[in-house]
């Protein structure tokens, strides 16, 4: 009797810890009643595949939020980095090298952001907004507003090769996610991101190189932005100036919905994935629900707002 109550409480605690997943699953099931196609394996797979972009962006954003900062440049990196990668391919490098170059560009932008923010004390909001404009502007100058097409077939392997019905992309995505989770939970640097976000003064008093840790967080968000841009281009077959722009707000909303503290120190990356898919689901619902295109953004924003309010209320009740 006593042990079963204990078990119940443990289950309840786990559910509350991962309530973002609960929320996602419940909304998915309810919506599925009205839009039965949601229950077909094809649609389910589509949801997973389409969600990879926002999920990768959100994970990168979550790493920066954990140290109590923000990175708005990610959506521009998501266009600029793969574009730079494609140019390196056109310049004669083999595709694997140009993919690697894409990721390095992302990491490099993150390194520059991190250096400006830690060494010169530029607020991350200002630094990354300016980076966003600069890179988005560069992409416009380079592409003249025309989508870059003619990507090599090997570049698009991830999106075009299937294992059974499942695109290779999904496996790649899962591998990246698992690496991110292990990094955050099981490595010294991962743990230090949380500690620095929690109290950077205490960290430097205890000998943790706070600035280095912060710079690493920005390099990670740059890496994830480049990854998401690469994955998107591999799926779509082109790169455009407006590439991931629509996903900036969702990439901020997803970690917040998942309970990542904007002031730093807290955030379960596993829940961020659910947060990202929840935001993705909202988009699908709005589209499939037959809402006029003019209303899409408004309804999206409203739903995100409600989700954030519910989360705030929940955390206030539980006293966190």
């Amino acid at each position, binding site marked *: 009797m006593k042990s079963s109550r204990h078990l119940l409480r443990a289950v309840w605690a786990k559910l509350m810890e991962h309530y973002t997943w609960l929320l996602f699953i419940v909304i998915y099931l309810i919506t599925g009643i009205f839009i039965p196609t949601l229950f077909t394996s094809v649609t389910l797979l589509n949801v997973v595949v389409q969600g990879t972009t926002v999920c990768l962006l959100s994970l990168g954003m979550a790493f920066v939020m954990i140290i109590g900062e923000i990175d708005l440049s990610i959506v521009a990196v998501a266009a600029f980095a793969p574009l730079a990668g494609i140019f390196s391919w056109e310049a004669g490098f083999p595709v694997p090298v140009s993919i690697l170059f894409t990721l390095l560009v992302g990491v490099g932008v993150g390194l520059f952001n991190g250096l400006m923010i830690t060494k010169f004390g530029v607020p991350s909001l200002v630094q990354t907004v300016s980076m966003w404009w600069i890179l988005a502007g560069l992409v416009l100058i380079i592409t003249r507003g025309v989508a870059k097409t003619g990507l090599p077939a090997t570049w698009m392997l991830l999106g075009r090769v299937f294992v059974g019905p499942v695109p290779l992309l999904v496996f790649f995505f899962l591998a990246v996610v698992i690496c991110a989770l292990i990094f955050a939970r099981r490595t010294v640097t991962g743990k230090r991101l949380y500690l620095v976000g929690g109290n950077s003064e*205490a960290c430097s008093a205890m000998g943790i190189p706070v600035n280095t840790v912060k710079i690493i967080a920005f390099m990670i968000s740059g890496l994830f932005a480049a990854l998401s841009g690469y994955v998107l281009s591999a799926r779509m077959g082109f790169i455009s100036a407006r590439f991931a722009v629509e996903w900036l707000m969702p990439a901020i909303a997803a970690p917040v919905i998942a309970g990542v503290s904007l002031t730093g120190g807290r955030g379960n990356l596993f829940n961020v994935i659910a947060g990202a898919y929840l935001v993705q689901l909202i988009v699908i619902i709005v589209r499939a629900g037959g809402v006029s295109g003019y209303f899409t953004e408004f309804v999206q924003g409203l739903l995100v707002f409600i989700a954030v309010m519910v989360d705030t209320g929940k955390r206030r009740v539980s006293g966190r």
Partner: protein
Amino acid sequence: MYNIKNVSKDFGTVRALRDVSFTLEKGKILGLVGDNGAGKSTLLKILSGGLQPTGGEIYLGGEKTRFKNTADAMKKGIAIAYQFLELVEIAKVWENFFMGRELTKKIGPLVFLDIEKMKRLTEEAVTRHGQSVDVEQEIKDISGEQRQIIAVTRAIESNPKILLLDESFTLLSLEGRKEIVQFLRKVNNTSGINMVIVSHDLDLIKDLSHYIMVLRGGEKMFFGRTDEISIDEIVNYMLP
């Protein structure tokens, strides 16, 4: 043996410390008192390597020592627990206990945190000093005494020669204060390290320390054994 000789510190034309000296035998506790601006913090910063003295010498175990900075002082056996304890409130006890010196294990070529070991060692360290704590709890959910115990236990983990405690008792209840006095006395007895304690809490200083030094306006007004001086006399020395 721990002693300093004629330590002075000038900030421009302002003399913050003037020829301060003391000698402590092994294992003795020094209580450092004085009004605001008396020079306590300046002295503590010099002892912990945060400031360079303008003049004077520091001897550790009879050997003349100079600290380039705080990290250098830590390396040479100085540990410090600060006023605000330098704990991350929203992190767990064991995470705080090992922050900056995390334990790792290798799996193939990869290095991962040894979480189980850190939890176990945290628990063992706290138990060794006759205390108990749930290492899975976050710092914000434990009492002021427990925070104090964690901070001090963490500071002495590296087997320092000297432990400096800076005003860390302000958040404690009367009961908690008693507990901390007992705890620090036990730590002092078992480890035999020197402690220098800075506090406004004269009762606590009187309870705990073997020696007392009173500073006023950067000058040593009194240095002697605790039983040689009453609280009223301490106050008299402190006031101008």
